């Protein structure tokens, strides 16, 4: 384990990724206690303010402190994205690995039905699920998890198939091990490495999918402090103060880059061949 961590931190991507994600996690855990102002407090006389000593990142269209809103919003934005990704990935991985193990007609049926669902683009799928359930953050989480599932299933299956052909799986089958044992102990761990990499990258996709849902009016709803919603609300005030748009955009970009770097670092660290 320490060996793995050392490998992770030795690569520049891994180190930088850990640093950024670490900072973000600090904001997630402590952010709402560190806000200098209430994230919803409006100040009619301090609207569209540029960054200053009183408001480090400036204020928005209602005179709300942007730093406070960003810190407050870290929790919902990041936790939601990670949760949606984890749920979607777990569901997909179980489906894909299971299907690969079963093989034959069952595999065929599961994967073809899975492919059929995947024919609906994930944003569109998310849009439909949210329209169905109502626009709010919890439903958006579920929608993104569902939208991620089919493609994660397909990726895990193709990885699992490669693994399945490997000698140690054949050996396990030859030893007469049970199905659950083979899937959980032999196949899944070897499937995990590529999936973890895909997953960390997916977190940034999830952050962006959330933001896009909010832009289309179907994600988080005002006065929530989700970064995506902050960006989409800020678009119409861009020409009054571009800070309102820049800060949450930068936060999203930083999160996405952080998780991508971490994903790459993990990939290198998990890959014993390197």
């Amino acid at each position, binding site marked *: 384990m320490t060996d793995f961590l050392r490998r992770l931190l030795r690569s520049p*991507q891994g180190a930088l990724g850990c640093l950024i994600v670490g900072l973000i996690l600090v904001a997630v855990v402590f952010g709402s206690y560190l806000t200098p102002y209430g994230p919803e407090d409006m100040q009619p006389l301090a609207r569209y303010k540029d960054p200053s000593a009183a408001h480090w990142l400036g204020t928005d269209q209602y005179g709300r402190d942007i730093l406070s809103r960003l810190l407050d919003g870290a929790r919902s934005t990041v936790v939601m994205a990670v949760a949606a990704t984890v749920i979607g990935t777990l569901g997909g991985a179980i489906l894909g690995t299971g299907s690969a193990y079963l093989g034959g007609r069952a595999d065929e049926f599961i994967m*073809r*039905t899975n*492919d*059929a*669902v*995947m*024919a*609906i*683009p*994930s*944003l*569109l799928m998310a*849009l*439909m*699920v949210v*329209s*169905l359930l*109502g626009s709010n953050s919890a439903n958006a989480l579920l929608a993104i998890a569902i939208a991620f599932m089919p*493609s994660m299933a*397909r990726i895990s299956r*193709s990885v699992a198939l490669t693994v399945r052909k490997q000698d140690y799986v054949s050996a396990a089958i030859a030893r007469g091990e049970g199905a659950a044992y083979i899937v959980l102990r032999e196949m899944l761990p070897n499937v995990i490495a590529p999936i973890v990499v895909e997953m960390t*990258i997916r977190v*940034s*996709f999830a952050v*962006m*999918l959330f*933001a*896009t849902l909010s*832009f*289309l*009016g179907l994600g988080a709803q005002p006065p929530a402090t989700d970064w*995506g919603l902050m*960006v*989409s609300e800020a*678009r119409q005030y*861009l020409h009054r103060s571009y800070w309102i*748009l820049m800060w949450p*955009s930068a936060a*999203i*970009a*930083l999160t*996405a*880059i952080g998780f*991508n*770097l971490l994903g*790459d670092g993990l*990939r290198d660290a998990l*890959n014993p*061949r*390197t």
Partner: protein
Amino acid sequence: MSASYILKRIALIFYTLFIVSILVFGITQILPADAAVMMLGENATDEALEALRQQMGLNDPIWAQYLHWATGVVQGDFGTSLRTGQPVGPALFSALGTSLTLAVLALAVMLVLAIPMGILAAVRRGRAADLVVGFVSYIGVSLPEFVTATLAVVVVADIWGLLPPAGYVPLAEDFWGGLQRLILPVSVASIMMIAHVSRMVRSELVDVMHTDYIRAARLKGLTPRRVLIRHGLRNALLPTITIVALDVGYLLGGIIVVEEIFSIPGIGRALMSAIQSRDLPVIQAGVMIMAATYSIVNFAADLMYAWLDKRIQYD
């Protein structure tokens, strides 16, 4: 790759459309909106609404409604838009043409840029070129399309005045004017895919170059270039086909946002306004058409995969 495989694969497309049709019909039936109210508007009397429900068969059992709708779809009749009162099919197919222009251009731009970028980064792993490509791809996957699009319009159109900010002119009507208006949307729609695919090409290639198989090829005394092209690329690009085919789904979704911001009357915008106004027949038809497009692209990708896979095995 026999004829029976292809036939089976085509049958699977129909299976896909069948599953999608059940899904989309189910979802639109549960959507919280009354089709009759949507059609007649806020001023309709209750009697008029009830008469319309009767006429549209909204009071029939759900399986009967599905059969009625599916029969229409098979015959190419997607019903009538609740919003405009016009037949859905012709309007959506002309929108699909617009979207395909956008999608094909974005895909082409992506392939032309992403694959060389990925190869370059893998070959020069750890060196300047790798870092530059890596940086570009990190930036590319770090912002949602609606943000990149907003920034692109502000910088390229508003500040520099280089390109028209929005609007759509069919290429057949005014080729240069139409193309100019497509540059920004195509760029925005392809950025994320360029980043994703170049990253995938890079990591696949790096992986492949570390396999025993490649080591063996090296040991045979083949030149590095030959090892890379004959053995490395072939194996590395194979999974990339799947990735690109998967990304087409992403592209189709991204097109919804791009069309919304750049005022392009494609299928994404048709779907978006249908979802907003609960125009059920348009949602149903739009999702079916998107799913069909995606299935056909993946069919092509699978054929290609099977073809290349065979050659690799017997190489």
